[in-house]
């Protein structure tokens, strides 16, 4: 079925993003440790480590939003939610999750505008490094887009649940993070 396949593809996309970009933390760990060593042992602090790590944090955090939604990591209160039936849960989610979707749409829309401007004007950071801002700015719309897709997958699954009465969301097991 097309809708189910679409959901699986989105899950796979975010899993793949997570597998690849989770290694960013290793780069951060190594560059920051190098900075400390360079400062104390070589007496030559770097002028790039701090700034590069800001961009790396942006990459890792923005791109992780969709994956965190996939594995149900985002903090939420499920105290009332738990007591509803499968179909009631689907109705509740359909009536609240549009808030995520407009949030993501704004990030994609305004974020890609800012990234596009930076690309066209060749905007760089105001530091010694003068690093191009486009690669990090573009993470906002991409991250918003990945989160948007994962949220849409969940909305589609809720619609399926409503139609078939079968748990397509897996919301019953969301108690343990």
């Amino acid at each position, binding site marked *: 079925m097309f809708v189910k396949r679409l959901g699986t593809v989105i899950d796979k996309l975010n899993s793949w993003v997570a597998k690849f970009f989770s290694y960013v933390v290793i780069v951060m760990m*190594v560059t920051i440790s190098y900075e400390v060593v360079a400062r104390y042992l070589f007496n030559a602090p770097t002028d790039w480590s701090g700034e590069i790590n800001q961009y790396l944090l942006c990459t890792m955090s923005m*791109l992780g939003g969709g994956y965190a939604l996939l594995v149900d990591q985002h903090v*939420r209160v499920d105290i009332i939610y738990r007591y509803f039936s499968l179909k009631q849960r689907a109705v509740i989610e359909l009536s609240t999750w549009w808030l995520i979707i407009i949030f993501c749409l704004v990030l994609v829309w*305004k974020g890609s505008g800012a990234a596009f401007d930076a690309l066209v004007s060749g905007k760089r950071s105001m530091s010694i490094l003068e690093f191009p801002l486009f690669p990090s700015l573009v993470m906002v719309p991409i991250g918003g887009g990945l989160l948007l897709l994962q949220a849409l997958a969940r909305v589609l699954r809720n619609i399926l649940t409503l139609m078939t009465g079968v748990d397509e969301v897996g919301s019953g097991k969301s108690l343990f993070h």
Partner: protein
Amino acid sequence: MPLMEVTILTIIIIALVIFFLLLGLPVAFTLGGLAVLGALYVWGFKGLYMLASTAYAESTSFILIAVPLFIFMANILRYSGLADDLYEMVYKWMGRIPGGLAVGTVIICAIFAAMAGISSVATVSMGLIALPSMLKRGYKKEIATGCISAGGALGILIPPSIIMIIYGAMAEVSIGKLFMGGLVPGILLSAIFCGYIFLRCFFNPRIGPPVDHSFSWAEKFRSVKGVILPGLLIVLVLGVIYSGAATPTEAAGIGALGALICALIYRKISFKDFRDALLSTFSLNAMVLWIVVGAVAFTHVLAYAGISGMIKDAILGLHLSRWWILFAMQFTFFILGMFLDPAGIIMLTTPIFVPLVRALNFDPVWFGVLFTINMEMAYITPPFGFNLFIMKAVVPPEILMGDIYRSIIPFVALQGIALIMVILWPGLALWLPSSM
């Protein structure tokens, strides 16, 4: 905006936040989504750019770089086998004391807390290692599960601490000072737990019977071997922060690398563990950063619309003693703690509370420490204490959720005592940071 409009807006926004949260929408998107609606209301379409710029500004925050690094360090420790080594040491050294295994478990949790910025690592590890061992040796389930749930929560009070980093970033307080502020109260709270367990088991050894097997001194000293490297790591990470040799962010980088090297030296980590640690770091970090993004965008709207100012003026206008207001804030934390994760609680409350704390001339570092002690309770208060769910997932099936709920009652009371002590004697929290 006229006062009437601000008042109505305030009521509507608070009602919407509660509505969406109760229906199970994640905190990050409740705040972020309402920030979109709020921005549209106060600025129109041109105001929406604020959300993208906030997302970028917060996710490139220099302070928050420490968050994924400390999470990664904690995740590596979880797979490093260190917990086994520590428990073996405790078993050999303290097993013969009444309640010794439970006291030792609290000490292990405190050591873990000094290496990990989150509470789940110690709770999971001890739940898997110490709990079965204690139950097998006749420890009563209340004391065995209670000491792990409560001990695990020490992770956020004893530095490093992710919760303190988020609070520091939001309240614009030095992370290094917050960390040092949590150290003495953290050790104090651990000592209170240990004292309580020992006294109860001393007067009633059936709760935590001594182990009737003794070890030679050679065996005892051999068990210390596995603890030396991690011990050095703790001293290194906390030492560089205290001395100012490195920023907390840099200490996080070194600490993560050190933890990884320790795990590799002891050869206890497989490639699959490593990848799991990476993935878990990736999603936890994203969770934290997306809450920050949503909450800061929400805060901008509240501030611009004059809502935060109005709530502050309204509370100050009551002319209550500042201690009553402090009490009300702590009470709010406690109640929210029953339902929400600390990261969400900081974000919901800082826009209102931090300006109040400053206006009332309370020290924001001290307030941060009080908040963190309060959040220790949040981890173990039902119905939604995070550590209780971790415990339920690792305990044998004959221990019920009700048993776990009952087991934490004395520990919540002890945490409450520690909170009151730090309120009465602010020096407990402020002495160490002021000596930096």
